[in-house]
């Protein structure tokens, strides 16, 4: 196992290099840091001067190697837009994104498990059908719409009706105050979790139903096991393997952030940072985010593969 992990880690190095080259070239071809100004208000002299001062007049490979040399020494440079060290900018956003992402992922797994277990226990019952309909409806909803609906219901109308309400996210609040933090986390977490939970619940439900029809479940029942033991110990463990893959695929999202949710709830996370960075051609920031996410993707895949060996003893790596 140790050899396997080492091998996979070493394989990651050329992969990261290739990813960085592709990202760098694509960024250079599609955006221009000068676009962050109103280009037409720049004089021709300004354009020449700024390109030279920002180092954009150098050939692209020179720019790439200059960047790579810095990045290898863990110096991510300065943001072209805000003139702050990229490390500071990312360090400020990352905890917020992880908090939002991890909380919503937890909710996703809980809801998906609850729905799937119930559906397997009482397939095609009224509640199962109802849950299927609701998950399908949420799944097909644009997250933007869901988020705004939540804001209007819980933050705007609840307040107008004199009920306990939640903030819109557009207020001034202190993230160090745990009570305020929880109140501000609820709506973004629900809207972010809603769509993913709906998808995973549908996936897990069909996986559970498949398993429930297999021979070993019939044997387990034949042995006289209680339904709870059949469901949770025998069916769920086998049905959960695809869920682990799905969670593994979701891990990078915890770091990359969610642009739409962050935009609607004014949650300054990595998604917004990345989105703004692209629009501003702020390549030091964008490259940092991209590489961070690539690393997490690779690590998450490795983690998923390893976790298979625990869930399914038939899988072995050598």
């Amino acid at each position, binding site marked *: 196992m140790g050899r396997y992990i080492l091998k996979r880690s070493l394989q990651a190095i050329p992969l990261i290099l290739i990813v960085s080259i592709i990202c760098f070239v694509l960024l250079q071809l599609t955006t221009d840091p000068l676009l962050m100004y109103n280009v037409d208000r720049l004089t021709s002299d300004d354009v020449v001067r700024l390109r030279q001062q920002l180092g954009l007049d150098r050939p692209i490979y020179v720019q790439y190697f200059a960047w790579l040399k810095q990045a290898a020494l863990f110096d991510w440079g300065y943001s072209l837009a805000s003139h702050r060290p990229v490390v500071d900018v990312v360090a400020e956003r990352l905890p917020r994104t992880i908090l939002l992402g991890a909380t919503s992922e937890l909710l996703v797994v809980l809801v998906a498990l609850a729905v799937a277990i119930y559906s397997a226990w009482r397939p095609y019952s009224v509640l199962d059908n109802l849950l299927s309909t609701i998950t399908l409806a949420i799944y097909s909803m644009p997250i933007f719409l869901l988020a*705004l609906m939540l804001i209007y219901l819980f933050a705007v109308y609840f307040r107008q009706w004199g009920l306990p309400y939640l903030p819109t996210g557009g207020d*001034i609040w202190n993230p160090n105050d745990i009570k305020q933090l929880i109140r501000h986390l609820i709506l973004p977490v629900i809207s972010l979790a809603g769509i993913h939970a709906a998808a995973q619940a549908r996936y897990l439900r069909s996986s559970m139903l498949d398993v429930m029809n297999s021979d070993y479940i019939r044997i387990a029942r034949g042995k006289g096991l209680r339904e709870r033991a059949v469901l949770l110990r025998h069916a769920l463990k086998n049905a959960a393997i695809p869920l682990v893959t799905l969670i593994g695929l979701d891990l990078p999202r915890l770091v990359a952030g969610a642009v739409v949710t962050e935009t*609607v709830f004014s949650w300054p996370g990595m998604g917004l940072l990345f989105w703004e960075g692209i629009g501003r051609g702020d390549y030091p920031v964008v490259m940092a985010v991209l590489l961070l996410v690539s690393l997490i993707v690779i690590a998450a895949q490795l983690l998923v593969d390893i976790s298979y060996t625990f869930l399914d003893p038939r899988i072995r790596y050598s």
Partner: protein
Amino acid sequence: MFDFLKRNGYVSRWRIVACFLILILVMSACGGQTTAPSQAPTDVPTAVPVATEATGKTTEESTDIPAATEAAEMPTEIPVSENPKELTVGSFLEPRVLVPYWDFAFILHMLTRMHNVGFWNINNNEELIPALCEEIPTIANGGLVPDGKTITVKLKQNILWTDGEPFTAQDVVFTWQQIMNPNNAPATTSPYDKIESIETPDDYTVIIKLSEPFAGWIKFFVQGFLPEHLLKDKESLENDPYLLNPIGTGPYELVEYVQGSHMTFDRFDGYYGDQPKIDRIYVKFIPSVDAVVAALQAGDIDVAVLLSESQIPLLEKLEPEINIITKPLGRYEVYFFNMDLSTDALPWLVDDANLRRAVAMGIDRWSIVENLLGGRTTVPNGPWMNTPWENKDLDPIPFDPEQAKQILDEAGWIPGPDGIRVKEIDGEEVRMSITNSTATGNSLREDTQLLVQQNLKDIGIEFVIKNYPKEVMWAPYNEGGIRYSGQWHMYGQFMDYFPDPDPMDTFSCDAIASAEKPVGLNYNRVCDPDLEALIEKSRLAIDPVERKKIFDEIQVYLSEKVYFIPMFNRLGVWAAKDSVTGLNPGWYTDIFWNVQEWDIAQ
């Protein structure tokens, strides 16, 4: 552990559902107040301004100047007020840096007004009013010299930086040097590159010597100054923390900036003018415009800025608790005719100003204003409507389809079988068909196109709508952008002349984007030596009265030539709780020019 979910040993479905509901309710009730939102989330302001901390200068160091001591001690008295007045402004845009010369984004320009002021300010009637200067320079008071190369500004003597240091003429010189310093990368060095030298005979007199006469001198230092006493030892300001943590001489001081979240401004007691009425102003950045409106409706913010015309119907439903403030701006929507025959221009339209006039006469711009903009704005008579430079004697080209038809008939354009006019030019039958382009996704522009299409059909002109995604339409010249490369007959966008109306950038032949010079504001692609001569004359007219006369002439000339059709003035839209008073927006300065006069009715 989860026994409470069980009934008779089995998990109860209803108990699970009930638990979720209770959880949501408990969480939403957690700290939920049905009265006012929590308004004191951040720590009480400390006596030492943040900017002072960042630059490593302590307040003790400034005690040798009596006036400064007073101001430096004052902040400790602020929290004494029992019920501090606080207000939150919501904006969907956020500045990238906070020092003006490093960017010219409008949001930066607006917010800078609160904490950093220039020589002069511009009020809601778009008039120049003194700020740090004693009076606006004129020829009469000796501030301007007829040769146009010298501007003398007398500074007020009681001005303090928010850290308590006095503001002097040396700070003006320092600001100019920093803009021109090759180690710094400000967005533009124009027009500061026209300054040859700045003389300071005493601490309160600034004499700006120019290399050439420059009528647009009001642009000088309109966005405030940089403090010499804090920054003089720095080789470069690039990537310096000061860019996000500046001080100023305005009515408020910036005490906190959390990127992606908000800015906090506290009243500056050492301000030279009338004392501000509100103690603390937050500017909250809410990246979604829809969420800005929701936050206003929920009461999380008090004032919403940078709203657009399309939000008015929604905002109207929130009256009277919410006040909608609208104002026709100097910014206007325009249809340009392509005047460049080396691109996709229509030769018959380029050749004949009368035909262009007929097109303008065929469009009912008043009905566009009435139907699409709720009658809240104006039809422009030229490029400078609603600015001090407007020629008030000039009327917009009227809506007169009969006369338009007559002009077209006389020019030999006869309606064909489908009603669209045709004419034989050089042995070829030409159809009177004009393509109009803009970027997709702007509903106001797309609705306007449909109305114009119907109007022009009525006088026998085919108006073909061919829109592009905005990434294609507005892309730079070297990326084949439709606008820059002239691949259009007529297109729509908005235009303004900000902060000075010098039209040279928009009408000189040199400002037409080309392969050699891929940027330029002459979107119209018009190259008219007579027009350029007139504009050149206006550039030398350093006296504003003289300059205005030439601008009047330019407007008459443009109205005769009809190189473009000004469609309607864009609306500035703001919304505020009805308890907020003193909001008087202007075009140049948004609502922040008189921030010290804002108040909250108790």
